[in-house]
C-alpha cells in the first residue's frame, strides 16, 4: 500500500510539473527545438530545475543502503554505448521533432481531451507494444 501511495504521489507531482511548466503544449516544446524561429528557452529551465532537484535526491540516496519501501535501488547498471542506444535515441528524436511530444507530456496532455493527442498517444502505445513484440531484447 505504501508503495502504491508513493508511486501515486510521485506521479501526481510529475503530472503537475508538466502542466505547470507548459511542457504539455507541443507548440512550446517545438518553440525550444526551433533554434532559428522565435526561440523559447523555457524547456531548458524545466530540464535544469528537474535535474538540480533530482541530483540532490540521488546524492541523498547514495548515503542510504536501500530505498524506504524496497530492499534495493533498481538503478540501471548498463554502461554500453551501443548501436541500440543510439538508434533508439535517433528514432525518438525524429518523432519528438515531428510532433513536439515525448512520452510524459503526451500522457499528461490527454486531460485536454484533444483528439490529436489521443491519436499520438495511441500510436506511441502501439510503438511500445510493437517493440515488445518484434524488437530486440
Amino acid at each position, binding site marked *: 500500500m505504501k508503495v502504491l501511495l*508513493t508511486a501515486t504521489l*510521485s506521479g501526481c507531482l510529475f503530472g503537475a510539473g*508538466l502542466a505547470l*511548466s*507548459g511542457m504539455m503544449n507541443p507548440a512550446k516544446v517545438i518553440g525550444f527545438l526551433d533554434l532559428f524561429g522565435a526561440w523559447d528557452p523555457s524547456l531548458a529551465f524545466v*530540464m535544469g530545475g528537474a535535474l538540480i532537484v533530482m541530483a540532490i535526491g540521488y546524492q541523498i540516496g547514495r548515503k542510504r543502503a536501500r530505498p524506504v519501501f524496497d530492499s534495493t535501488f533498481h538503478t540501471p547498471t548498463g554502461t554500453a554505448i551501443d548501436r541500440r542506444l543510439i538508434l533508439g*535515441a535517433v528514432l*525518438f528524436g525524429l518523432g519528438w*521533432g515531428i510532433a513536439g511530444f515525448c512520452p510524459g507530456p503526451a500522457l499528461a496532455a490527454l486531460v485536454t481531451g484533444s483528439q490529436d493527442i489521443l491519436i499520438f498517444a495511441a500510436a506511441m502505445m502501439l510503438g511500445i507494444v510493437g517493440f515488445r513484440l518484434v524488437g530486440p531484447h
Partner: protein
Amino acid sequence: MDQFTPVTALAGGGLIGLSAAILHLGLGRVAGISGILGGLFGPGPERGFRLCFILGLIAGAALLYWGFQQPPAVVSQTSWPGLILAGLLVGYGTRLGSGCTSGHGVCGLARGSLRSLIATCTFFGVALITVYVMRHVLGWGG
C-alpha cells in the same frame, strides 16, 4: 509563438525533479515515463506501482490544468499521419534506446550516467535537426 516563461518552467521542472527523487528514495525506481509505460506490458510483479504512477501523472496534470482559471493553450500543429508516425517513432525509439527525456534526460543525467548523456545529446540533436528541416527547409508550420 509562445512567450518565454522562466518562472513556471523552473518551478514545474522542480516538481518533476521532486517526483523523480521521491520515486528513487521511496521505491528505488527510475522516473522514466517510457520505461514505466513499457513495464506495464511486460511480465513481473511491478505493474502496480507503474499503473499508480501513470494514473497519478494524469491526475496531477488534470488537477493543475483544469485548476487554471483559463486552461493553458495546448496546440498541436501536426497532421494526423504526422502524429501517427511520430507516436510510433517515440514509442518504439524510447524502448529501443531504453529511455526518454525523463529516464535519460533527468534521472540518468542526475546520476552522471555517460550512457544517458550520449542518448540525451543524440535525441536533442536529432529533434533540433528535424524541426530545422521541417520548418526552414521544407517550410512546414510555424
